């Protein structure tokens, strides 16, 4: 069965005068149908840019290289009109800031129904009814009343549910969630993750979950892709990654998560140093300055992403169990 989403050597850079700022560098990964892929990385790692590239939402001065194929169709070369058939219908995206991601002057019902009116050629009446059902699906109480409300009348958690509902309306094969919980309280975060889990098993769609928080991703993803400085540094099945991380960066991330049943620590572990700025040119391993295992080779030669049966890693001296 062909992959739902297939990214091959994707590079996204921005021209800024004479400089080129590289946000994503030669990234490759696949998402199988019905699979949940978690993408983890710090801010500046390029994870949002790669999503924007896939959805055709990049700014005008972006330069894209490589290929993004959805169900076999190449997305990069398409113009807006063609992309519009796919966006919102077969591939949906949920953004991280529910407070600002909904149009303030339109009723919730309109923002939901318009997706169906546009993509499924439904009448407004039918679309409105479908929207009400979707609100119920995402566990919003009193859906009929909510349809006639404006975004500012809903809480952050409810708005995020509405966003997720908006993404589900046309029964997409792929739902992309970019930091869906980052702007929400911890308790609400858990609810949203639960919602996504339930919807996934109910609808069987593929899910890409992007976050800087490994804990959020670990609860839901089948596989995890770790990004650093625009590149993939490790990719493996979730349990494998959590128990036997092979890239020093992944190991470092895991150490940063405080655990309730580990030894009591004096200080929370952090990763020393800063990730590189998007504009920096890197010939060698980007993580070398911060890596406790870095050797001479790491500062000269960039490690390639090498696969094995358990997963792939881009490191000259990967950790072994």
């Amino acid at each position, binding site marked *: 069965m062909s992959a739902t989403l297939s990214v091959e050597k994707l590079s996204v850079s921005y021209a800024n005068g004479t400089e080129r700022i590289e946000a994503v560098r030669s990234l490759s990964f696949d998402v199988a149908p019905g699979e949940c892929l978690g993408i983890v990385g710090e801010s500046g790692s390029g994870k949002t840019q790669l999503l924007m590239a896939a*959805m055709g*939402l990049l700014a005008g001065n972006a330069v894209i290289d490589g290929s993004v194929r959805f169900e076999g169709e190449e997305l990069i070369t398409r113009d*807006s*009109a063609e*992309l*519009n*058939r*796919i*966006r*919102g*219908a077969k591939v*949906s*995206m949920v*953004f991280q*800031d529910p407070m*600002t*991601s*909904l*149009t*303030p*002057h*339109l009723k919730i019902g*309109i923002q939901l129904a*318009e*997706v169906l009116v*546009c*993509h499924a050629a439904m009448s407004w009446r039918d679309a409105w009814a479908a929207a009400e059902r979707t609100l119920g699906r995402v566990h919003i109480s009193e859906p009929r009343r909510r349809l006639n409300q*404006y975004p*500012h009348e809903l809480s952050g958690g409810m708005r995020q549910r509405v*966003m997720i509902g*908006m993404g589900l309306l046309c029964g997409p094969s792929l739902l992309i969630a970019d930091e869906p919980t980052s702007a929400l309280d911890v308790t609400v975060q858990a609810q949203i993750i639960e919602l996504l889990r339930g919807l996934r098993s109910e609808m069987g769609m593929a899910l890409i979950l992007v976050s800087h928080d490994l804990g959020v991703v670990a609860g839901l993803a089948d596989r995890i892709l770790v990004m650093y400085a625009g590149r993939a540094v490790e990719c493996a099945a979730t349990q494998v990654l959590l128990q036997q991380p092979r890239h020093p960066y992944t190991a470092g991330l895991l150490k940063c998560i405080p655990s309730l049943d580990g030894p009591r620590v004096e200080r929370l572990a952090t990763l020393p140093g800063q990730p590189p700025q998007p504009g920096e040119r890197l010939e060698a391993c980007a993580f070398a300055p911060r890596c406790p295992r870095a050797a001479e080779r790491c500062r000269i030669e960039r490690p390639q992403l090498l696969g094995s049966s358990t997963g792939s890693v881009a490191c000259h001296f990967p950790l072994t169990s």
Partner: protein
Amino acid sequence: MFRYFLTRLASAIPTLFIIITATFFLMRAAPGGPFDQEQTLSPEIMANMQAAYGLDQPIWKQYGRYIASLAHGDFGPSFKYKDFTVTELIAQGFPVTLELGVIAMVLALIVGIPLGTFAALHHNSAADYAAMSAALVGIAIPSFVVLPFLGLLFGVYLHWLPVSGWEPRSLSHLALPIIALALPPLAYIARLTRGSMLEVLRSHYIRTAFAKGLPLRTVILRHALRPALTPVASYLVPAVASIMTGSLVVESIAGLPGIGRFLVQGALNRDYTLVLGMVIIYSALLIGMGLLVDLLYAWLDPRVRVR
């Protein structure tokens, strides 16, 4: 929302009242009287005229009479156009000026807003620069220069349109004055819309709209336009003021019998009641416009209605 409108109305009426009172007393307190420019009249005739116009009464009584007659829509007699009352003059001229002003305002909006939107969508292109440069020219050059130029071009050289004069129901006579009046607000509205649209297009909710696969037209018309128009709504009252100001000159040049021309004549002739009446009408118009704009804000942004 109805309550919101009522509170705004409640503060508008006193404002108008203050304006009426202030102008009335200022006028009476001014040095010289309305008959100063006539040839010297004998004291008896002066006294008779004063009595006829009620100028010999104590000032409070005059004020009271004025307000009372205002309530009946009577602005008093014109001091210079002896056969007419101010009310009659206003009734004659107002429809002309209103027609002129309303069409100009509508023109400014229906050309300015799309122009600004177009410029924003083609940001930094040649078309954008061209449009904004044209807008700058429109803003900088006054209507009393534009109208004669247009008249020269279209009337004298190209013979497309009549240069001056007025016939009822004749659009071609009004065409050039309307364009000259509409040009500065049009240009300003185009600039405002462009800047505001550019900002709105950067919003997160516009990104969401595009991600939903909505066509560009829908994103602009349904999602982007209303928030982008808020600065334009703020500009509406100054725009009307600008059109009112422009109409003074445009009516004079084009020979249109509107109230703008009366105001200018009244000023040159020191016709007190006429000018007083005009000032009141114009002020009432502006205040009314302000109320409409407040309502418009509430429609543009639902969050305002909560207050």
